[in-house]
Structure formats: structure tokens, C-alpha cells
């Protein structure tokens, strides 16, 4: 596995959200012992439904949330639980995030130029405002917004969704990052624009050797974008593997259901219960309540990782029992 050093590595990272209401506390685990590694130039897709914790994973990598437990290793260094000062600034420069909703990710009171020049000035990529302005034009051209000079003075509301998302990508590139978190960057766009944005991201990956976490709920998009796919369900990674390998032989019951839904082969498929009604299983497998192959052990114990084939692992009792 370790051909090159991983750019970022999450080791047993858990994230708990604690809600206090009069007298009682309710814990929700958005992430349960997540292990994940991204190498330079590699696109890893994180696939899962709403509420599976994939966006939380992205937010932790982007430094917007702090893990409750576990360690984050970035470029070989274990990060302290609380980044601050120059170290934080350095991390912000090297790790960037693209948001899902292009309509809320740009500040409505600032021009496009302002959005692009701020990171350039904060991280002293550009020495002066004039240089920042020039660099901002270059960024707009790099994401296919031409002629760039026309866009610099526009307000976000004067652009279309696709154009805004390109601005969002341009802003992220301003600091010349090494790692990109793309949190469902195409899900709010028209279908006709999705491929453009995906190709733009892949193109940038090739040119700049970016590592990328591509968060999506769409298996086919993940297949198109990613070298490796990780399937997440209620805070747990349930299956991971090289995209082609994983998708040709999906092994976890949840991945199988997702695949069936994709190919519309719903014969023999049971109703998928809503994820909301399942009490957070503290000891057992996250998927136990919805699983068509549930066994007694699923409710009581966390499953172990089992290797299905070279470069393809699954976190399920069905496989660990037989091996």
C-alpha cells in the first residue's frame, strides 16, 4: 500500500456531537474510528448517503472541525489537537475545501476579485494588491472563466451556479494547495455542467499533483473521479478498494444495495429503512438495523476488516466469519 508517503492520514478518528437538553445528554457519532489515507495525486472518493458523516470527515480534514479522538497525520507530522499560529496558517494554505452549494459559498457583499485576492494576500502568495489582481485573473483563466477581467468586478449574484462553482475552485487554487477536499462539488449543479466541473478537477489534479478527497453520494461520479472509493455508513467506513475492483464486486450489503439502486435492479431488494429511526448502535455494526443479512453477532460486536481481494477490503461480519 505504501508506495509513497501519504499526504494526510486519519487514524482511528471519531467525531461525537453532544447535545445537551435539560438534564440529559445525547451523543451522536458522526465518525467512528475512521482510518483514511490520501497520497499526492490520488483522488479518494468518500461515498455515502446524507448523514453518513462524509461531510464531517471532509470538515476535519479541512481543519474546520476537531476530532473527538484519534490522530491526524499531515505530510508525516502528527497534528496537535489544537492547531494555532503559524502552523494553522500553514495548514490552511496547504489544505483547501470546495463547498457543495455555490450559492452560499461566496459572500454576497464581496466581488469575485475580492474572494480570489484575499487568500493570495493572507498567505502572501502575492506581494501587493496589483500582483494579487493579476494572479486572480490567472486563476479565473485556469478554471475556464474568460475573459477574466470581466469577472473580477462582478458580484456573486451576477453569476450562474456553474460559474460560481468555478470561482469556488479558483479561490481554492489561489494558495496552491497540496490537498483538496471537494464536498459534493457537483450535486447542486445542472447535470450538463457536472462533467465539466469533474473534468476541471481531474485536470487540476493531473497538472498540480493534488491529493483529493472527493465526497459524493453518487457511485458513478465516484467511479469517474476516483482512484480509490471508500463507502461510509453512519460514521463507519464499511468498504474500501480501488474503484474498478470495488465496483465490479461490491461486497458489503450496503454497497450492494447502492449498486442495485444505481442499476435499477431492485429484484429481491428489501425496503431500505430510513437511517433516522435506527438508534445509534454503540457496540455493533452501524448497518445492522438495515442489513438484509443481519446475524446475532452484528448487533453485539463491531466487525473486523476482511480482505476480499487485492486492494479491496470490507468491514463486515459476513466476511470475517468465513475467513
Amino acid at each position, binding site marked *: 500500500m505504501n508506495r509513497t508517503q501519504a499526504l494526510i492520514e486519519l487514524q482511528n478518528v471519531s467525531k461525537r456531537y453532544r447535545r445537551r437538553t435539560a438534564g440529559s445528554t445525547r451523543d451522536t457519532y458522526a465518525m467512528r474510528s475512521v482510518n483514511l489515507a490520501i497520497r499526492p495525486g490520488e483522488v479518494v472518493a468518500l461515498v455515502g448517503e446524507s448523514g453518513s458523516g462524509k461531510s464531517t470527515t471532509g470538515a476535519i480534514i479541512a481543519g474546520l472541525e476537531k476530532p473527538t479522538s484519534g490522530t491526524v497525520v499531515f505530510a508525516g507530522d502528527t497534528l496537535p489537537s489544537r492547531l494555532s499560529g503559524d502552523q494553522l496558517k500553514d495548514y490552511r494554505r496547504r489544505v*483547501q475545501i470546495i463547498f457543495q452549494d455555490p450559492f*452560499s459559498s461566496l459572500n454576497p457583499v464581496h466581488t469575485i476579485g475580492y474572494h480570489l485576492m484575499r*487568500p493570495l494576500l493572507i498567505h502572501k502568495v502575492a506581494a501587493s494588491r496589483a500582483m494579487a489582481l493579476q494572479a486572480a485573473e490567472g486563476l479565473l483563466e485556469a478554471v475556464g472563466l474568460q475573459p477574466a477581467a470581466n469577472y473580477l468586478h462582478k458580484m456573486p449574484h451576477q453569476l450562474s451556479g456553474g460559474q460560481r462553482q468555478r470561482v469556488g475552485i479558483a479561490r481554492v487554487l*489561489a494558495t496552491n494547495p497540496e490537498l483538496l477536499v471537494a464536498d459534493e462539488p457537483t450535486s447542486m449543479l445542472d447535470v450538463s455542467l457536472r462533467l465539466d466541473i469533474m473534468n476541471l478537477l481531474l485536470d487540476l489534479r493531473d497538472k498540480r499533483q493534488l491529493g483529493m478527497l472527493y465526497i459524493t453520494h453518487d457511485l458513478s461520479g465516484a467511479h469517474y473521479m476516483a482512484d480509490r472509493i471508500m463507502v461510509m455508513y453512519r460514521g463507519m467506513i464499511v468498504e474500501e478498494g480501488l474503484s474498478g475492483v470495488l465496483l465490479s464486486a461490491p461486497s458489503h450489503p450496503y454497497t450492494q444495495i447502492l449498486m442495485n439502486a444505481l442499476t435499477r435492479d431492485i429484484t429481491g431488494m428489501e425496503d431500505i429503512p430510513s437511517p433516522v429511526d435506527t438508534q445509534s448502535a454503540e457496540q455493533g455494526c452501524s448497518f445492522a438495523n438495515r442489513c438484509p443479512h443481519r446475524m446475532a453477532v452484528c448487533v453485539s460486536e463491531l466487525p473486523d476488516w476482511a480482505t476480499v481481494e487485492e486492494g479491496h477490503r470490507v468491514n463486515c461480519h459476513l466476511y470475517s466469519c468465513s475467513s
Partner: protein
Amino acid sequence: MSVASPSSTPAQGAFQKFRERNSRILPNIKARIGVGLLLVFVLLAVLAPVISPYSPTYTGFSLGASPSPAHLLGTTRSGQDILSQLIWGTRPSLDVSLTTGFITMLLAVAIGILAGLLEGIIDEILMLFTNIVLVLPSIVLVIVISSYISAASDVTISFIIALTSWPWGARVIRAQTLHLKSKDFVKAAIASGENHFRIAFFEILPNMFSLVAANFFFTCLYAVVTVASLQFLGLGNINAISWGSILYWANNSNALMIGAWWWFLPPGLAIGLLGAAFALINFGIDELTNPRLRREGR
């Protein structure tokens, strides 16, 4: 926005156009009328020495006269020219309302944004304090304090009103800060490395400019009315010339009973019009500061 979808009839199209045009111009008209009214009062206040026909304190005219060419709004029962008093009275009324609005706005923004950005214990302490001030009966407090300080000055009254009326604004601004803080553009700004100060004042605050301005003008409106009520009740300095004190003396001299409308109606109208000016500006600002309604090339 699908203004000209092929399925819409000409009538619908015309209606759409009408609505679109009016939604753009009407708010500006409101704001313009408001600003116009306010400017008239500001001019009156500034030019009082020039345009006022007599000294407002001179008592040598005939007593209790009805309107005449010499005294357009008549005279008081102690022989003062009411028009002159009305014009000079603009000054303290504007002073007090704008000062109060400004102090209140500063307090509300500072406490609201601080509480919204710094969650946890600081937020809880600030909100506890805010809620305590909120339930203090403001009018009663103002009356008690201003009757305790005999002949309280305008500045004192401004401060008393401001210190009891900031919590409403602070709560709204805190709520809006919490809302905006969860927006992706704030997260994006944090991810690009912006510091707390810039997040608060360059990312969040500009997005609630209309809220802050509304808070300012609403407090101005509240202050105009409150100060006039205090003076009408005989609190504050009733010997200073202001709209409230004109009303106090008018009431004291039974102007209403003897039908001297020229004495109590003009100051009442002035208070109402200044209040309306603040309210109209308030309405207009909301639309003008909404970037989506801003026209291109402005």
C-alpha cells in the same frame, strides 16, 4: 428568474414587468421620502437662527394669540412665538434621537456579534446580562432616573434610553451572527485563513448592514417619542425649548380645552413626521442594501 417564459400570456408579462419595475422603484421612493423629511428637519435645526422669525424665549408678545400674519402659529399664554419655538425645538429632538440611536447601535453590534461568534461561557454570560436588561421596564427606569436627576440634560436622557434599549438589537444581531456563521462563505473564509476580526467585520457584519441600520433608525424613532413623552410629563428640562416641552406647556395651559390647535398640533405633527422619516428610511434601507436588488453599474 423566468420573466419571459413562452407560455406566459401578454397580460401576465405586463404584470410581471409592472411588479418588477415597482419592486425596484418603490423602496427607493420610500427611502427618498424618508431621507427628504429627515433633511428638512436637519435644515430646520441648522438654520434655526436664520429662519426663525423671533427668539423662542422672548415673552413680550400678546398672550395666547391665535395665528396671524405676525405669528403664523400664534403665541403661548406667556407670550412666546410658537413657530419660533417649533423651529428651535427641532435641534434637541434630532440631537437626542440620533445620539441615542448611535449609542444603542454600538452596544447592540458589539455585544451581539461578540456573543454570536464566541459560543460557550462568554456567550451565556453576555446573554444573561442582555436578558436582565431586557426585562427592566425601560420607560419606568427612564422616568425614575430622570426625575432623580433634576433637570436631566439631553445627553443624560440619551444615555439612559440607550442603556435600556440595546438588548433587542443585541439579541437579533446575535441570532443573525449565528445564522451567518454557519454559512459556507464564512467557513470558506476561515479555511482561507482569515482571522476572527476580519470574519466578524468583513464577512459577517456587511451582511447585516440593513439589520444594523434598521436597529439604528428604529431606536431613533423610539427616542424621539420617548423624549417627547418624558418632557410632556414634565421630566427632563421643561424650560429648554423642545417639541416635548411645547406640548407640556400647551397641556399645562389647557390648550386642548380652549381649542388652541395651533399650539399642540404642530409639535405633535413634527414628532410624528420625524418618526415617519426614520421609519421610511428603515423600510427603504432593507431593499437598497440587499445586493440582489442592487442594479448593475451602481
